């Protein structure tokens, strides 16, 4: 194990949500502990939520769900179909191509097409027709083609 392996381990620990790594090989052993993250901020958020005042900006999508999150690029109203009388653009399981329109976010009477970020199939539709959405809020999860 040389210094470069250690550097790589540290980079890993920083990128991922890891606090401690212990690693042994035939020629040695290493243990790396990351600085603790907990800050007053976190507990503040807890309190605010507890007080029931601040609303959550959106469902947090975990990496482990192994999907690509398509987020709203605008504040506005989400529509799942081109018009109320028509069928939704997509449903769970629909196969999509990158660039394909899968929803609409209306902001100030402008209809903004939401496009699939990747080829794959729709794993989740997180908003209902007519739901208000914030900037950056996840709308869909796409399971990419493997």
């Amino acid at each position, binding site marked *: 194990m040389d210094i470069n392996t250690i550097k790589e381990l540290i980079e890993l620990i920083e990128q991922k949500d890891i606090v401690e790594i212990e690693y042994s090989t035939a020629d040695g052993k290493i243990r790396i502990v990351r600085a603790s993250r907990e800050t007053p*901020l976190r507990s503040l958020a807890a309190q605010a939520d507890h007080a029931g*005042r601040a609303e959550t900006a959106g469902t947090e999508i975990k990496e482990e769900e192994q999907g690509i999150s398509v987020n709203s690029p605008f504040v506005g*109203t989400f529509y799942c179909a081109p018009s109320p009388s028509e069928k939704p653009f997509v449903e769970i399981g629909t196969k999509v191509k990158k660039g394909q329109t899968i929803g609409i976010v209306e902001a100030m009477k402008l209809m903004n097409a939401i496009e699939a970020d990747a080829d794959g199939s729709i794993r989740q539709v997180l908003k209902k027709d007519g739901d208000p959405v*914030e*900037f*950056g809020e996840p709308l869909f999860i796409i399971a990419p083609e493997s």
Partner: protein
Amino acid sequence: MFTKVLVANRGEIAIRVIRALRELGIRSVAVYSTADKDALHTRLADEKVCIGSAQSKNSYLNAPAIISAAQIKGVDAIHPGYGFLSEDAGFAEVCEAAGIKFIGPKPQDIELMGNKLKAREHVDKLGVQVMPGTFQEIEDEQHAIRIAKDIGLPLMVKAAEGGGGRGMKIIYDEDQIPTIIKIARAEAKTAFGNASLYMEKYFENVRHVEIQILGDGNGSVISLGERECSIQRRHQKFIEESPSVAVDDRLRNKMSEAALKITRHINYRGVGTIEFLLDEKGKFYFMEMNTRLQVEHPVTEFVTGLDVVAEQISIASGQKMSVTQKDIKLKGHAIECRINAEDPETLVPSAGTIRTYIQPGGPWVRVDGHVYCGYEVPPYYDSLLAKLVVWAEDRDSAIRRMQRSLDEFIIEGIKTNIPLHRKILASKEFLLGNISTRFIDKFI
């Protein structure tokens, strides 16, 4: 009265407005950029909406996103705070077109006062003395040189669409004219989207004194007295007080009359500030009008006992003013220090995480802030951390109260201008009230 109001701003002013709304029984909606998800204004509001990414142009200056947020939240009105969209007549129009009340003046008044050349013309016609200078925009270098000969050096070149201390350059020497005009024009174009420039005489030993007014849009406009804002650095206010040591009752009345003449004529609605330059002989000149809530409104609140923000919101909702001119009596003395995240020597903004934050408290000390222990000051916005405001029976006591409050204020993890405030407050010149717009240069 409104039921729900969106606050189109961040930092201390968003919190100030949310406080007023809550006290009025109105629901508040905060908007925020992705950089502000931990900002205190998002926690103190009843609801919140993320409107865009960190850069102001994508969020706090993003009018469509704000209107859209207002629509999904179903608000009655938008409060713009100061800065950002607060003096954007177009935004005020779009709000009204969308059926959302803009808590501010009528769009045409924002526009009139927003163009400093038009404002000068308006004020001059009413017989109020304006700063000596041009009433037309500068055509070219030759034109500028002719004007310079006319009104004499030194001169100040200003952007017609500038204001609030931005877009200003001083010319001491005729030779500088071509270069400065070129730079100023380019800057004005970038900063305000309009390259128009004009010129005013530049005075050296003068004060910046402004009159706070309040109008109901139905012909009633009152004066809330003056604020002394001479302590500035880079044309940005640093310390404000009310009353001014240079203003006695007679002068206060004269300045108030001038301010009321300017605003009554347009039947002004909401809060506004008429900025005057006051010379050593007690002569005053109109500089510009700010058609919005000012950063330094708390000093006026302290000496008048009037909640200026509640009054502003209430007027916008169509209610009458709660006071008349004769109810306004200035009592005691108030001082505000702007506590910025910046190096006290170089004045370079300082972003980072606040490790310790202990506010001053006790009698007649007001802190309008937005940061807390553990908060990370983002590098994208204004460096104002808190306004420290004190009141006392008289100016000397107010200065002592401010000194002890500055001594108590402990902020660690980032640099602040508190040491510079301490130095100024301890100086004999400040104590004597011998101040001018050039005052701070001696301390840096």
